[in-house]
């Protein structure tokens, strides 16, 4: 049973979500402000945190920053519809995905499942224990570990999933839609900047090629490609 942490200041709403998620087989716990939310998330007891970005006192983004400083726990943001800045800042700060606020509990549950599936997918994969290697990049999907030129890289689970997709297709462009399906577990929505934000933070974390270019290249109209040397 996956433990889900709900961080939202709307007590009634969170109560209903909690009830719904419990029925769906999750172990849901709710906190109503950012500060205790961050503290709770950092205990390491949870499989995923659902975080409302619009909270008084300690703002959701600040909470997100604090959680990310100490943990790679998958985080699903609740944002207001139309508030793109919050969303992009949240993704840049390392949130895994977002749901716009007036959302049905069913949609929320589906998103939680998708993220958890990706985060917990690896161990039973039939790809064997051999690491995947592309240039300086080495990846052990079973252990959820990545290194660049021997140095360990800290990636969020979404970044890891996206990178894995790219590594498995190294040398070939992968469309954004494919990345969304394989990496995020959902088809890409219109005007969705999610993939771009995750890939730009990946690009920052990965090293560059011998000629100074980034090993992650944008292929016009096709998507992204991991350069195979």
């Amino acid at each position: 049973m996956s433990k889900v942490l709900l961080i939202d200041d709307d007590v009634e709403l969170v109560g209903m979500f909690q009830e719904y998620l419990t029925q769906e087989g999750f172990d849901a716990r709710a906190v109503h402000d950012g500060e205790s939310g961050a503290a709770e998330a950092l205990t390491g007891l949870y499989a995923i945190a659902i975080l409302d970005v619009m909270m008084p006192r300690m703002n959701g983004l600040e909470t997100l920053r604090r959680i990310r400083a100490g943990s790679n726990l998958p985080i699903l943001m609740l944002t207001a519809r139309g508030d793109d800045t919050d969303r992009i800042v949240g993704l840049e700060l390392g949130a895994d995905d977002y749901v716009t606020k007036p959302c049905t509990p069913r949609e929320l549950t589906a998103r939680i499942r998708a993220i958890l599936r990706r985060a917990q997918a690896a161990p039973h994969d039939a790809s064997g224990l051999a690491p995947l290697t592309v240039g300086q990049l080495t990846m052990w999907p079973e252990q959820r570990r990545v290194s660049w030129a021997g140095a360990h890289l800290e990636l969020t689970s979404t970044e890891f999933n996206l990178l894995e997709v790219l590594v498995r297709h190294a040398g070939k462009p992968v469309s954004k839609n494919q990345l969304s399906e394989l990496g995020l577990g959902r088809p890409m929505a219109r005007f969705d900047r999610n993939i771009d934000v995750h890939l730009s933070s990946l690009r920052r974390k990965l090293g560059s090629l011998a000629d100074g270019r980034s090993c992650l290249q944008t292929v016009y109209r096709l998507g992204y490609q991991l350069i195979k040397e």
Partner: protein
Amino acid sequence: MGRLFWKFFLCIMLAQVTATIGIGGTFWLKNRAAQQERALDIDTSPPAQMIIEAASATLEAGGSQALRQFLSKLERMRVFAVDAKGQELMGRTVHATMLAKARAMLGQGEGQAHPVVRDAAGSDGKRYLLFLPSSERFRNAEAGAARDTLNAVAMSGPRAMGPGPQPHEAGAPPRGEFSRGPPPRMDTPYRTFIPLGAAIAASLLFSFLLAWYFARPIRDLRQAFEAASQGNLAPRFQANGKRGDELTDLGRDFDRMTGRLRNLMDSQTRLLHDVSHELRSPLARLQAAIGLAHQQPEKMAASMQRIERESERMDKLIGELLTLSRLEAGAGHTHSEDVGIADLVHDIVDDARYEARARQLDIALAGDAAMADASVTGQPELLARAVENVVRNAIKHSPDGGTVEVDLSRQTGWLRIAVLDRGPGVASADLARIFEPFFRASNTQHSTDGHGLGLAIAQHVISAHGGRIGASLRSGGGLCVEMLLPVKTPS
């Protein structure tokens, strides 16, 4: 260079040209009149005396024939010789006034050493009146005239002494004359055009500068208006305050206007943002409740209740928003009546007490008996709503089991309603902001009842009734909201 610039330019140019022509014309006319006056005068200067002397000597020595020859040789300062009949020797017309003047001067001039008018008799017996009109003399420069006289004397001298013309000497003036004489006449037009051209150039320059000086701030204003119509309301006239005239003031007023508009627009945008945010919360709960109803059909009744509650909340929020926007639009005072505040407050407190009992809250009302006769002119529903909102706000923030105090008192001309609680209060910096729509003090929990519109509505109602509302922190914790309403003097 817009059209305005050219209009200014042409106007100023025209004004300057008109002024120049006017002043120049006046001087010219005056000058001409003086010259005409002088033209009728008899010349009395030493050169004139000399030439008259010479002419009379010629006449006396050689008769009228010799005088005619002498006169025809003169280029300037040709002496007039008039006989008794008023006929001039050379056939020139003689102005009657001048002749009369000459005759008069002849009378005065008797006995003078060098008279300027002479009555001389020729050797042939003809008598002539000799004089020199000023016009002759002023026809040329003095130096030239004097030389002329000398030439004439030198030329006529030998003639008078002995017969036989000496054409060589008399016919042509000495060669050096032209080189030594005054500048040739053909120079003169240029000399008149130089100051004229300079005047035109100066007036062009000044019209240009003036037109530019006036047209530039107006062009700036126009650009500002254009920018404002495209939504750019940034201040733009703060820097050029050095002119210090009406146009600067206009720019400053424009800035003030855009500043005000900017504030209004910002607050509207913020309000819209807040409204959509506030509507989103009940919507999210509505959707969650619907989701639960789908998931657990056996708990349908509870879910339905929740759905009902949320839709009521949304309805209430929209109702409050409409009230607020009506109050902001200034609607109201359509039907004013006398409102007995003591009764009104009493009713509200009774209602609130009933609801507060659930939380063991007490509401203490003081001073209502003393205020029984005090009334305020206004709309009772709105006033009741304002007071109720303030009281409910106090109840909401009071700890369970506490006491909310409502005090009525009278100050000169004002009725004071104070609502005091022992809640958490607000930060002193936020005291004024609690009356803004959707303001939520950072130390309040997001509770589901109330939308942050109550106090905003109260403020609008009170100010629409000519009153004031304010908040202050209580010593010992809690908030005091004070409403002042102008009391109706009993007539």
